[in-house]
């Protein structure tokens, strides 16, 4: 990694850090228990929507038009869903899904 890449990466890490810190501190600095209704609504619905976004983000590079048509990702993803429905333990689902994917790779 050259100096320019390292410096730019450091800026991005700082941006992630400061934005996260801002989100955690903001309510303590401004809200004092009164939450605007629109903000409260977004807080309720955004987490589920953003997780949906991140699932798509993670699978963005899957090639669905050429063989094997994303079969690896499909099998591993389905395993995660089924394990989560069955055991309700995220750690087991993640570990097993990842191992299955690695074995298929």
């Amino acid at each position, binding site marked *: *990694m050259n100096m320019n890449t390292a410096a730019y*990466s450091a800026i*991005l*890490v*700082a*941006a*992630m*850090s400061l*934005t*996260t*810190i801002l*989100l*955690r*501190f*903001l*309510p*303590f600095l401004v*809200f*004092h*228990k009164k*939450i605007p*209704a629109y*903000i*409260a*609504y*977004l*807080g*309720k*619905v*955004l987490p589920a*929507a*953003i*997780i*949906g*976004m*991140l*699932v*798509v*983000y*993670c*699978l*963005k*590079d899957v090639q669905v038009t050429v063989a094997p048509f994303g079969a690896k990702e499909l099998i*591993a*993803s389905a395993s995660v*869903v089924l*394990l*989560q*429905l069955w055991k*309700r333990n*995220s*750690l087991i*689902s*993640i*570990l097993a*899904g*990842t191992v299955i*994917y*690695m*074995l298929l790779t």
Partner: protein
Amino acid sequence: MNKNTKRTVRDAFLASVPVMAGYVVLGIGFGILMHNAGYGTLWSFAMALLIYAGSMQYVGVGLLTGGASVLTVILTTFMVNARHLFYSISMIGHYRDAGRYKPYMIFALTDETYSLLCDGKTPDGEDPNLYRFLVSLFNQSYWVTGCTLGSLIGSVLPFSTAGIEFSMTALFIATFTEQWITTKDHIPAITGLFSTLLCLIVFGRDSFLIPSMLLITAVLTVLRGRIQSEQPELVAETDLPAGEKGGAEK
């Protein structure tokens, strides 16, 4: 250290044990990903120390290697971590008199720490602020240990780590499934999925994140009346990803 303080350290440690396995394992996954992306141990350590938000750190690996713009990084962090606003809101009361411990406790308020402390209960006869501070500190120490360890063992593992990047996908799919089970209203989840899919098709894989976030916010804003009438409660606590069961997402 007096006897009472020792007791608080012990109780805080015991309370934090359930978080240990999850943080160490997911931290190791992150460290290996960073190593494979060409970032050394100091990077993993620094990110665990300064960002301390698991999902965001996983997404961050891709943003770093893809050379994303600062604006993309800030907006993505804002959306991925927006739920922390609501953890903080619901802890304003509990953390009110935390004094010198307070800044760190707010900084370290992750999903798991929130799930351990949100009921406001602390051991009888012990300093509640020291207890909460220590639970927060123990949890971050597990995360920093995992991230650092993953980066270190990434180079010496006796088997190929090809495919380990799927751990991030698995993390989000497991969280998505768990949220689907524990909520009645699936409109937000479907909105997130299909808005992003649409933006991926329209804008391509290098520049669809910002459009996706804007579209998701717009769609959910339009649907506000509808979703609210179906789920009238507006308390921040409902955002908690199912306590220890959804415990892998932080």
